[in-house]
């Protein structure tokens, strides 16, 4: 009986707390709704990012990008009607379930008026569904997996130059155009089981195959049990000239280390994602090991795209350091796309966000990544930059007009540039 009484008391206390919590929310919302018309009331822009878990490196960078945008928009008089922006950012823990509840909560509880996307195809896949169902514009900074755009969504736009299957195109064409004696004859494709990494490596394989570069090894590994030493040893036995590794950060680093352990140095090494993470990558595998590693990248801090200098300056002012992570730049560009659509159409009302989407389908937007435009399904129609590590620094080597270095190192030279 005594116990029962305590239980009832505890339940009552919880119920009271919950009621108080809801009440607080209601008040906020009422105020927010009413103040929407008045100028100066902040516009809540919501996003959920993988700040912890597997994708936490890019997730944290994306958060910085959004914060730089928020600061810059607010410095220049707000997004629309002089209203400043207030980012509401949640942590989805790199989890596909959490991200769904996060975006639902952003819309229904936090009452955000605009959304921004999250990092990686894996998470954008479910998150974009929530946005589509709520008829809210969803521009994403990463998430180039082709399957994202096979669903006929009307509110989804990818703010990079191309989808994953085309990410390695420029580099693959460079390789197949090499003179016969320099061109690799065989290739290996160890790939993480991931909706972004896989199509990228398949896209490259398709181009290579057409040019007669034989596939001698292809395998898929999972993030929690990569067994990279075994893969490195299996590849070593096949002696491929080029290794194309579809990777995210931790496994990308692990793959390079496994290759070093196995004592196997393919002539060329191409990785997705990991090499674009700057200092962290160099620190993790050792600076001298980076020499000549290729990757695709969307942003260069030296690029002369409109607003890039200001962005880089603001980023360094806010977060220090000399490097600007690619994912921060992508997030910033994503927000630029949203901003351009809002400015052009002149509304952020919930039931009119289809107009924002329609505008994006018909217009080109100038971003720090260069001009972006989209097809009917929100797929970007541009080309990626090709990056390469040279003397411990990530450089842009292709296309020629965007290059920051005038040479391309033909081979992977771990152990020093000499």
């Amino acid at each position, binding site marked *: 009986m005594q116990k029962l009484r305590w239980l009832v008391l505890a339940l009552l206390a919880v119920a009271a707390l919950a009621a108080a919590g809801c009440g607080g929310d209601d008040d906020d919302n009422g105020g927010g709704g009413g103040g929407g018309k008045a100028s100066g009331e902040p516009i809540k822009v919501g996003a959920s990012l993988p700040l912890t878990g*597997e994708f*936490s490196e890019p997730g944290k960078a994306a958060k910085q990008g959004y914060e730089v945008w928020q600061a810059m928009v607010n410095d220049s008089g707000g997004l629309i009607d002089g209203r400043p922006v207030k980012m509401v950012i949640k942590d989805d823990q790199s989890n596909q379930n959490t991200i769904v509840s996060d975006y639902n909560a952003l819309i229904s509880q936090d009452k955000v008026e605009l959304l921004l996307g999250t990092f990686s195809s894996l998470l954008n896949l479910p998150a974009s569904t929530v946005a589509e169902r709520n008829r809210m514009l969803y521009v994403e900074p990463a998430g180039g997996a082709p399957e994202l755009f096979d669903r006929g969504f009307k509110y989804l736009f990818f703010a990079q130059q191309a989808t994953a299957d085309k990410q390695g195109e420029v580099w693959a064409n460079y390789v197949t155009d090499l003179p016969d004696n320099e061109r690799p004859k065989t290739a290996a494709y160890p790939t993480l089981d991931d909706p972004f990494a896989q199509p990228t490596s398949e896209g490259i394989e398709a181009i290579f195959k057409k040019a007669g570069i034989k596939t001698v090894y292809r395998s898929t*590994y999972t993030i929690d049990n*990569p067994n990279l030493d075994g*893969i490195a040893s299996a590849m070593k036995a096949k002696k491929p000239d080029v290794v194309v590794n579809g990777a995210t*950060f931790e496994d990308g680093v692990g793959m390079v280390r496994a290759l070093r352990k196995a*004592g196997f140095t393919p002539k060329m090494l191409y990785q997705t994602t990991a090499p674009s993470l700057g200092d962290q990558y160099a620190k993790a595998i050792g600076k001298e090991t980076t020499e000549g590693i290729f990757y695709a990248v969307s942003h260069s801090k030296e690029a002369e795209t409109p607003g890039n200098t200001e962005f880089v300056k603001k980023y360094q002012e806010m977060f220090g350091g000399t490097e600007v992570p690619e994912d921060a730049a992508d997030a910033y560009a994503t927000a630029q796309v949203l901003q351009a659509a809002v400015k052009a159409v002149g509304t952020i009302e919930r039931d009119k966000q289809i107009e924002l989407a329609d505008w994006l389908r018909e217009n080109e937007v100038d971003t720090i990544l260069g001009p972006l435009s989209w097809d009917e399904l929100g797929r970007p129609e541009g080309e990626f930059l090709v990056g390469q590590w040279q003397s411990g620094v990530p450089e842009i080597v292709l296309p020629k007009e965007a290059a920051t270095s005038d040479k391309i190192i033909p081979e992977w030279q771990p152990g020093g540039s000499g």
Partner: protein
Amino acid sequence: MTEFLQALILGLLIGGVYALLASGLTLIFGVMNVINIAHGAFLILAAFVTWSIWRATGLDPLAAIVLLTPLMFAFGWLLYKITVGPIRTAPPAASVLLTFGLALFLEGVMGVIWGNTSHSVRPAYSTDSFRIGELFLPKAQVYGGLVAIVVLATLYLVLMRSWLGRAIRASAVNPQGAELVGVNVASVAALTFAVGVGSAGAGGAIASVLYPFLPGSHYQWIARLLGIIVLGGMGSLPGAVIGALCLGVAELMTVTYIGPEWATGVPYVFVFIVLLVRPQGILGTRLRQDVATA
């Protein structure tokens, strides 16, 4: 042939480390009939502590074992007194639930302290290998395997030669009989649990160099370790060593000849086959309740 030998070597090296990790689990089961689902979490905890020590002082993760083993031993003893001890005589299902809860709790705590991000310890030798002709033996695995053998041998000697070891074995075989001859089974159980957690401390320090880890990695590890002790025979230390070497080699062979995506399933395949063909495992003896129903 080179490919096969290489897979065999890598499998045996990693198997040695698995053996150390599984030894604590099988010991705790043997003596107390407790299936310690939190074993994986203990090992990840040890890996995180190793990482912090390595970050702060640059101390070699394998040298950190000297610190971690007693530290985890003490932690295990304390944890036993607070949580597992009170339900020692309850049916095994209770201990499964309890230790599963412990694992979730530790996962949460580690997430708060170290963040839910992937970590790995990278001493200078972690990208080097010893080479024999075409074959390579990664230094980290070799050192890790050697340390694992030393710790395992010590554990074996303690079990076989010391009074504590005899008391542990007596308590495992016949608790009532042990009580009769003056063994305090309750405190032996506490010490066994602490020894088991201590070995997870040593294993965790080694694993931190070989695999990247995050708080949630313990699920993968406990699956692997349970597969090992089911194969080797639950409660048998030599069985755990054999099971671990088999699993290590089977994983590497799978990676080499079938595909890395299938390696995750290897421990489960082990469990299925063992349960169908030889439920007591390679070196396990049938439990009394099995015999009674047989």
